[in-house]
């Protein structure tokens, strides 16, 4: 079987899952058949997942920095409050 025929087959199967299944089912199908996808698509999907993980990490770090700032503000305010009491 040629690469192209194999890609067409896997695409047909995946299409059915995407059209009729859930997102989780489609993702699982992709993971189960990942090595059967064209190299270019494998690389592209890996980059997509990497970028999403990177973006989430940046957002979590931003949030953590904000939370710590807020906590420090509260603590400093508490200290002022204690002094005024």
């Amino acid at each position, binding site marked *: 079987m040629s690469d192209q025929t194999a890609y067409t087959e896997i695409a047909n199967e995946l299409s059915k899952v995407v059209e009729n299944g859930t997102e989780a089912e489609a993702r699982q199908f992709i993971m189960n058949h990942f090595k059967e996808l064209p190299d270019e*698509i494998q690389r592209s999907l890996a980059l997509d*997942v990497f970028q999403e993980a990177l973006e989430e990490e940046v957002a979590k770090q*931003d949030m953590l920095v904000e939370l710590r700032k807020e906590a420090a503000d509260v603590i400093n305010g508490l200290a002022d409050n204690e002094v005024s009491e």
Partner: protein
Amino acid sequence: MESSFLRKHANRVEDAAKAKNAGTTPEKETDDQPTIGQIIRSDSKAFGQMLESQGNPELIATMTRYQKGEPTEADIKNLTANVNLFLETKERIEKLDSFLSNSTDHLRERSEKFKEFSKIFGVEGIDGVLKQGLAEMAYADPARFKKIETYFSKLEKSEKTLDDPESPVNKTLTDFCKKHNLNEDTLLAIMDEQNDALRDSKIASLLHGQLTTFQKFFSWKRSRENASEAAAISGLKTQMDQMLGQDELLAKQSGDYLVALISKNDTWRSALVRTQSDKQPTFKQGIDTKTGFDEIRDDMNPDLKKIGKWWPQYLHNQGINNFAGASPVAQSALRDRFKRDYTNNMMKEAAKKGGFWATVWKFLFAQKMNSSEIDALLK
């Protein structure tokens, strides 16, 4: 602009260009900077992708003149500027590679999806795949590459902020923990507790030990949010009395503040997300909206009517007046190019936001474009 075309003609072109330009402005050659010809020879694919990504038809004319050995002074200037851009991009890729090697382990710990992907390629394999992918992206999709660079730079900045022992915020938090004898191990155990009820009970138990401090802490916080400070302080005692009888409420609120006090400890950070699983953190910035799974279902099938209408127009725009008279190889190449262009065009509508599902869409759509039904229309 085909990169293989560039490679094919590179040797001949450089010689011809030098000869032709003997009386005009020659391409500058220095010991430390490669010439246009050298770049075309050694990095033809990447250089071609970079030029193509600029979407400037004039560049095709420029390259054609260069390859014929007939570049104008403006052509040489233009290509030299692009060689410089190419070399700068190469340096940026190397810099990003060094960040990448340090960050993939960390990201694997932090993202289940990325961890899953790493397993498919293997730890070293995924690094290689990403390096190759990012290098291609730098030339073919510079805007996206810039975005990745920005994320790395943000990550580096926030890591520095969190790790800086001299930062006033970090000092305040460290002093607070010391002053109130907050045991990090106890806090860690609490934040790591996955059973909600047990976690709340542990928090409540800890807080009863630290009651005065924490109640003042919560009350002051509330006073800032809900009332004037004077009123809040006057009502402080009442609030404290009420809170004493409300362990559940106290535990819930304390969870929020303990979260805010979480240190730089990685396990705590993971616990942060887990403990708030019912209330996922609101990301104020940083995450781009991507094409979603539901979105790609709508436009998964090529529109045969549209293709039938576009094809003759495409041939006309390509200057092809007698497609049937072209050789089978030329016909096949033209069909392939049309399919690629049509798919890219449709992608701008169906999966324009990019991301995982956009890539899936592109794969599925491109495969559907290879059907005999479509081929029958392209004649």
